[in-house]
């Protein structure tokens, strides 16, 4: 340490000079500076460094920290690459052994001889359940977030926010069991009602009702609700008060103020929140494995028992799978990876398109 100027020594010398004129005694740091005589900072020169410019350090905390952050950043790339290599290496043999079209075949028999399996129905189910879940969750989540930030009295807002964060801490298997054993009853009744009055819409087709896409999506909606709520709450809290007051001073009602100032300002943040929710919905495994009917068919009928997703299928079928079976499941995992990637890129593109307005906002 003798080479590098000591920071507290600098501060100390300054301290003595500044405080000497006052009637209180110089502090501990000042005394330390007097006794620790640093060759680089001759006494009397102070912080300005009257003794010329010291040389830059060859190695210090700055460099070390920089190295650590670079390593952390690189680790992400290494991990992603390792996962990709593993997935592709395992998936290719199974895909080559497949005797049906991987994209269009509706069924999953990779353990048979010859193996037959297709991703179409699974990918379709994954996207459909996730989108339905968002359709339900996003308006509710935004409503809760706006209520918490702009309508609720402070005490209620804090309490309710805490409860919602608690919802995020419930394990997904608990949601799955709750959905399978309890929510299935009300959803069956709802399905019957929807089919009776709105049966002419193709998505509300005939039964049997029970473990349907609707049930899975509703459970999923509850699961993604907390993440979207708490993120958009943070975003809404960041709206500059000046903009809210500008809207109010123009004669806006509370709702008009939210529409003019808060929602547009929070748009990129809301999109990010929704995309995180979508990411969670696409990848959700065990809750859907428990609530969906595990069929391999592409059907828009959300009421009838059935439906399946890539992640739920992996959970359900992994234990019984042989080598080809595992390869097939891993191939489906790759497709899920690709779907998530597309979703994220789309979200980035949406945010990027409006950058001129959002950057100047910061």
């Amino acid at each position, binding site marked *: 340490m003798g080479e590098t100027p000591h920071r507290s020594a600098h501060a100390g010398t300054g301290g003595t000079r500044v405080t000497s004129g006052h009637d209180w005694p110089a502090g501990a740091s000042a005394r330390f500076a007097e006794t620790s005589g640093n060759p680089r900072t001759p006494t009397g020169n102070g912080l300005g460094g009257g003794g010329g410019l010291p040389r830059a350090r060859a190695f210090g905390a700055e460099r070390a920290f920089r190295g650590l952050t670079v390593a952390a950043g690189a680790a992400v790339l290494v991990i992603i690459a390792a996962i990709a290599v593993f997935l592709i290496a395992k998936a290719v043999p199974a895909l080559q052994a497949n005797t049906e079209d991987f994209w269009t075949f509706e069924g999953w028999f990779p353990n048979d001889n010859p193996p037959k399996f297709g991703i179409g129905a699974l990918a379709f189910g994954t996207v459909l359940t996730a989108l339905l879940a968002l359709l339900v969750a996003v308006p509710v989540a935004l409503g809760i977030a706006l209520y918490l930030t702009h309508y609720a009295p*402070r005490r209620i807002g804090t309490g309710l926010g805490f409860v919602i964060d608690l919802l995020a801490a419930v394990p997904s298997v608990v949601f799955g069991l709750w959905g399978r054993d309890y929510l299935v009853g009300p959803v069956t009744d709802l399905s019957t009602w929807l089919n009776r009055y709105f049966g002419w819409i193709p998505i509300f087709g005939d039964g049997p009702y029970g473990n349907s896409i609707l049930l899975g999506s509703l459970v999923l909606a509850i699961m993604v609700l907390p993440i979207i709520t708490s993120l958009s709450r943070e975003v809404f809290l960041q709206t*500059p008060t*000046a*903009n809210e*007051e*500008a*809207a*109010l*001073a*123009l*004669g*806006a*009602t509370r709702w*008009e103020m939210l529409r*003019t*100032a808060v929602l*547009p*300002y929070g*748009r990129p943040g809301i999109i990010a929140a929704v995309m995180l929710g979508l990411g969670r919905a696409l990848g959700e495994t065990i809750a859907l494995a428990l609530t969906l009917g595990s069929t391999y068919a592409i059907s828009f009928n959300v009421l009838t028992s059935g439906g399946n997703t890539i992640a739920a299928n992996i959970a359900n079928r992994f234990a019984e799978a042989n080598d080809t079976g595992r390869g097939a499941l891993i191939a489906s995992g790759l497709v899920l990876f690709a779907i998530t990637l597309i979703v994220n890129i789309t979200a980035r593109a949406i945010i990027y398109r*409006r950058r*001129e*307005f*959002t950057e*100047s*906002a910061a």
Partner: protein
Amino acid sequence: MAKRIEATNVSAYYGAFKAIENINLTVEPKTVTALIGPSGCGKSTFLRSINRMHEVLPGARVEGSLTIDNQDIYDRDVDVTAVRRMIGMVFQRPNPFPTMSIFENVVAGLRLNGVRKKSILEETAEKALRSANLWDEVKDRLGKPGAGLSGGQQQRLCIARTIAVEPQVVLMDEPCSALDPISTLAIEDLMFQLKDKFTIIIVTHNMQQAARVSDRTAFFSIEKTGDPGRLIEYDNTQKIFSNPSVKKTEDYITGRFG
């Protein structure tokens, strides 16, 4: 297009704290009235009471009577949004909506009032921007973000946004305190022109500015920190700055305190 404002025994509170006490003053139509005084004396609080922006803060309330052409703006039956449409406000820091273009900023108030027709919006936007002396600088880039303008331009944009809805009264809360001298001059010039149509009340820390732009000046002060602000003297600007009747006013404008 301009109305008289009358304050009678107006007191304003932040929770239990009384910020201003028993303010009585009358503002004539088509004049510029400056509110001056040391920091914390309640000038801004009084200004925000006039368009009921004070009550936006949690726990804040106003007592006494404030009327605009003899209509009580704190009447239980009065719609607060109507009050704010009638009494526009320009803030200390320029606050254009960051997500909106220059054009959208100017017509934001019209859109809130339900005006949808494009021709009307464009016509009003041009008129408001011309009145705010900003049209020539922005007419070629109306679709660009309002937040991309310079500070002085942003403040004139905010003035354009305020006057686009044709209020009766324009309140300005230290509108030039974040601006450089040239932009300040532009806004002071603007106030002279706007006086023909609007009643203007401006809070300012800059006494030269008050002397330059206002017809009448109200001097606010406090006894000590924690006390409510009071109106010490209210008179023609020339009188206040040349021959004030209260010793405290004289001390303040000559720089002996505050």
